């Protein structure tokens, strides 16, 4: 049974990474056809770095992702703390509200926001509503649930008396909040922020409906590229991003492993637990 699971896992990993291999090979191809390999060349990477437009798009995507995840993390954590103090019907209502963007398909959220902005446009009698701000609003909106759903479990696991103990020991309410509560839920905040950043960086469907032409993100422009003869420097961009993210993840894994090893070896904690 275990061997079956293991072979399945290996097969699935191969399946998941085949396109990466195909695109990686295509990025070194001098011809434009992915299926036929003409000759090995680095020229696509050269084209990529000379293409200001593509790099601008990448920068746009990163800016939106960073801003949206920051804002949604800050306000989402505040909201999670607030929801945690709520009871009964109010809490259920707010949690349902939080679940709506998760259970709604992306296309419906995108369409709804696009209609909202169009409606606002006709109210304010302007034509140029869609742009940086509408994109940011949309991203923050769908990032919120990711943050809240990552922070809430940590709040629920936290010992409720810790905050009171801090107050008893002389902290101001603000200090108690920052030093105790935030510290306890920090893993949830970090994973929520990371998820929000990842979702924003690669979001296509929602951005496609709410983006104007003044501020375009990379996924939307890639979609436009797929409607025309493909330019191979896109494959170079993809392979580079893949390499960078892979390196980051391996690094994170390594650091996390080291952090855990240190925690295990710290003597003070072990003694305290033994007591």
């Amino acid at each position, binding site marked *: 049974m275990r061997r079956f699971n293991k072979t399945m896992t290996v097969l699935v990993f191969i399946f998941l990474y085949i396109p990466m291999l195909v695109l990686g090979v295509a990025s070194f191809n001098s011809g434009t056809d992915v299926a036929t390999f003409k000759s090995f060349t680095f020229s696509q990477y050269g084209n990529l770095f000379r293409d200001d437009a593509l790099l601008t798009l990448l920068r746009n995507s990163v800016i939106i992702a960073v801003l949206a995840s920051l804002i949604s993390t800050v306000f989402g954590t505040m909201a999670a703390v607030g929801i945690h103090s709520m009871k009964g019907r109010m809490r259920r209502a707010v949690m349902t509200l939080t679940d709506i963007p998760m259970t709604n398909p992306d296309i419906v959220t995108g369409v709804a926001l696009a209609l909202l902005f169009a409606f606002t446009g006709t109210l304010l009698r302007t034509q140029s509503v*869609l742009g940086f701000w509408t994109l940011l609003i949309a991203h923050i909106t769908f990032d919120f649930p990711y943050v809240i759903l990552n922070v809430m479990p940590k709040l629920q696991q936290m010992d409720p008396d810790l905050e009171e103990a801090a107050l008893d020991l002389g902290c101001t309410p603000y200090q108690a909040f920052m030093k105790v509560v935030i510290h306890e839920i920090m893993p949830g905040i970090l994973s929520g922020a990371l998820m929000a950043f990842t979702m924003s960086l690669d979001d296509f469907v929602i951005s496609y409906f709410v983006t104007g032409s003044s501020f375009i993100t990379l996924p939307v422009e890639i979609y436009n590229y797929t409607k*025309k003869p493909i330019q191979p420097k896109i494959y170079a961009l993809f392979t580079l991003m893949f390499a960078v993210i892979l390196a980051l993840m391996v690094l994170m894994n390594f650091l996390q492993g080291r952090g855990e090893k240190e925690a295990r070896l710290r003597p003070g904690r072990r003694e305290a637990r033994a007591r």
Partner: protein
Amino acid sequence: MKKRILALLLAAFLTAAVLPARAQAAGGEITVYNWGQYIDDGTDGTIDVLAEFTKETGIKVNYLTYDSNESLYTKLKTGGTTFDVIIPSDYMISKLKEEDMLEKLDFGNIPNYKYIDEAFKNQTYDPQNEYSVPYTWGTVGLIYNTKYVSASDAASWSCLWNANYAGKMLIFDNCRDSFAIAESMLGYSLNTEDSSELRACSDLLSTQKSLLQGYVMDQIFDKMERAEAWVAPYYAGDYLTMAEENPDLAFSFPKEGFNIFIDALCIPKGCQNKAGAEAFINFLCKPEISGQNLEYLGYSTPETEAKQYMSAEVTSSPIAYPDQETLARSESFSNLSVEATQEMNDLWLQVKTSGSNTTSYLILTLAAVAAVILIFVITGLDKKRRLSRRCRKWKTEGQQPAK
């Protein structure tokens, strides 16, 4: 303390990164919205029109593309973006004019307008020449791969309904161009508004659907060049571009008739930099620019002067500049009424969404619904049985002393 400094630095860095994104370039900036693959971008040693324009005037160009008149119209209608120059086709220009979405051009800023041939002025879509300046003109025809498709088959639009080429045919992904093919085959005008005629066209297009490889616009380049598809209707200029990559490709003007079009430069309402837009239009009308640009594109120029800057091979091409006898079979689009446009859109949607083997899906769904109801009933009965068994067990146990 450290964290707070870090947070402040991060915030400062982010604001610094965002601000330049919205700063305007020094000589001004214009946003041009054009068809895809419709301007020379400097590949293969040809001129980069946009770069040349910026060099000459100092105005930076923000360049975006669309793939059909309908996409352009939708983009302008849904708002949210301002463009300075757009390049619609003839019928779309009259539609935009009627809906008051175009600015009148200041021809004082476009002195090169004098090079446009008289034959292209005073067209039905802009009789007073107030809103547009012709950019290219062209025709629609059938592109086919001579290795797989015979020339005799390709002489008629019915080639696209030929089952021998099933799965290897493409057609336009916009309603007017596709309906035009059906209208030619059925002998109707390309601008008919008659409901029964439109419906006959959509029925004809529906019969074609199962034989098609797909509905495409600019994806056609890759597909025809690699011989993934063998026959497709498209614009003559793009055929000339594709033929350079794949010499097996040939072009025919089908005998039933075809569409001839003029694409012209216009300035939409809401533009940010009208003077810059007019400078751009003026630049494109320069004979050397028009000549070199259109030689690269393969489309036909509306300026005789520009032909001096094009090679003889192009100016004598019967595909780029067909003779009068061929042109007699052509017809241009005019704008349809709002109701007719809506009806055509609805019929087109029906064509694209009508499907086969729906019966199998219906059967599956009915079976699933039946299965769901069955499971509800069975689990309900099963639960009742288990509960009653448990109750009986407790009753009997209660009567015996516990051991």
